[in-house]
């Protein structure tokens, strides 16, 4: 089918070429040297950092996103409000790196509007470890697209919670916490986990936003950018490709998990 052909040509081929480059040594030979190097020493630190960082950002996004989605799902009045939330989520989830970085810089950057306001009330935002380029700041900025993404993913699942379940639980003597503990959260669990994985993948691979706010080479996409960028010696770009290859592997694992969870969730939905 033409669809498959299209996909192969424009997605698989670049991917494979990344791998082919990664598997070449510095002198153009075939070998796993680059892959090994990409996964050790400083590079390994970078992967570790990126993974934990992305997991953290994903966790924040998951919890806040699920909460927001639940509130949005239960809105009965005014009726346009829920649509507004979904519409904005669609935009915010796709928020490109540049405008997002700009926006947060103008609000919470050192010269930011919000920073100044908080100063006026006596709170010095930059007193401690905070900085938009630091972990806390990055997580805040990433939440801007992570939370809406989570909302979009979990809203259908929350809609799928039948009111009859809640009422049946009530008639059998269970209160709110009983319901959530024994029915609600278990049913939502696959979708929540799936959302977490999606957010993880999203945070891990975010490039443009991070690039604007920091030059932290421990963030893998940025690291790849450094290695493949302009002034790097010829042999070193193989490591860059290897890094990209490993990143693809990690993403692939995450996506397979996501897919498995989605299938499970669908089984209960219908």
């Amino acid at each position: 089918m033409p669809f498959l052909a299209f996909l192969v040509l424009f997605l698989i081929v670049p991917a494979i070429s990344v791998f082919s480059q990664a598997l070449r040594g510095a002198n153009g030979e075939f070998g796993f040297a680059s892959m090994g190097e990409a996964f050790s020493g400083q590079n390994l630190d970078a992967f570790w950092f990126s993974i934990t960082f992305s997991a953290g950002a994903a966790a924040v996004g998951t919890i806040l996103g699920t909460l927001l989605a639940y509130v949005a799902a239960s809105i009965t009045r005014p009726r346009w409000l829920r649509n507004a939330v979904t519409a904005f989520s669609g935009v915010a989830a796709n928020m490109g790196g540049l405008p997002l970085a700009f926006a947060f810089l103008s609000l919470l950057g050192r010269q930011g509007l919000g920073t100044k306001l908080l100063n006026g009330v006596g709170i010095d935002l930059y007193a401690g470890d905070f900085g938009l380029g630091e972990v806390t700041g990055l997580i805040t900025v990433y939440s801007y697209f992570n939370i809406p993404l989570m909302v979009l993913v979990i809203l259908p699942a929350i809609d799928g919670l039948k009111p009859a379940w809640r009422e049946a639980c009530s008639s059998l003597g269970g209160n709110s916490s009983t319901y959530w503990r024994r029915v609600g959260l278990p049913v939502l669990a696959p979708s929540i986990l799936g959302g977490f994985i999606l957010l993880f993948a999203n945070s891990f691979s975010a490039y443009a936003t991070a690039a604007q706010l920091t030059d932290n080479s421990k963030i893998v996409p940025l690291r790849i950018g450094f290695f493949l960028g302009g002034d790097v010696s010829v042999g070193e770009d193989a490591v860059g490709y290897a890094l990209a290859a490993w990143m693809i592997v990690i993403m692939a694992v995450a996506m397979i998990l996501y897919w498995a969870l989605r299938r499970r969730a669908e089984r209960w939905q219908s």
Partner: protein
Amino acid sequence: MAIVRGRVFGRVVAPLILLVAAAFFILPLFAMMRFALQNVQVIDLRWSNLFDKWSLAPLWSAFSDDQFGRALTLSLKLAFGTGLISLLLLVPTIVWVHLRLPRARSTVEFLTILPYVIPAIGMVAGIMVIKPHARWFLNSDLSLIPFYVVLALPFTFRSIDSGLKALDLRTLVEASRSLGYGWMRTIVHVIVPNLRTAILSCLFLTVAVVLGEYTIADVLLKRTFPAFMGEYRGSDPKGGYGLAILSLVVTTLIFMIIGLVSRPKSARRRRARGTT
């Protein structure tokens, strides 16, 4: 304001959460807008001069930059092309999957998640490898389209898929074909009109993706609108930020319009459930 099923918790906590969320999402945009349109440095900003020196001048000068028109046109062309090709690829494929291979559906959905596996930076790396070999192709500005189609795949697939799920596809197709329509005519005259909302949202999703995509365009040295914005920010930050705000506002409005257009259907369904 917003009421959550009449529970006391819902009356206080829910609106509060919404308010905090609204603040989180709107304030950065507002700050960016202020920076763009108000000619006062943050350092000098006081309550007294809060409303001074607002002007749309930075926007006008951005508009009048000679690259502006070209970049915008290119991005719109790309958006249109991406949307069109996405639809042409997706609609027949998904219809086919729904009808003939229902079990393959989850596999196909998995395929559409692949763009997440191979994120922008990965694609860039891949493209850099191919660059020397496919120069003739990559020279055209429109070569971005296929990549954008792939990039938008997770979202576009979702919207067409859920649009088709809501129809009783099999019955429609069988009815249409029993009345004499061939496959092509069935798709064009029967299925597509019923997918109006899904198609619209698909198109607008591609617009959102194209207007937000920077990485690949940058690597391939194409002067799309986002690339232009990035460059313009270097020379005139106010204008650059102003443009960014503008494109965000426009995209949000578009999405809200889609939401409004598709609302009557869900409201009708809600009313039908009713009480006995």
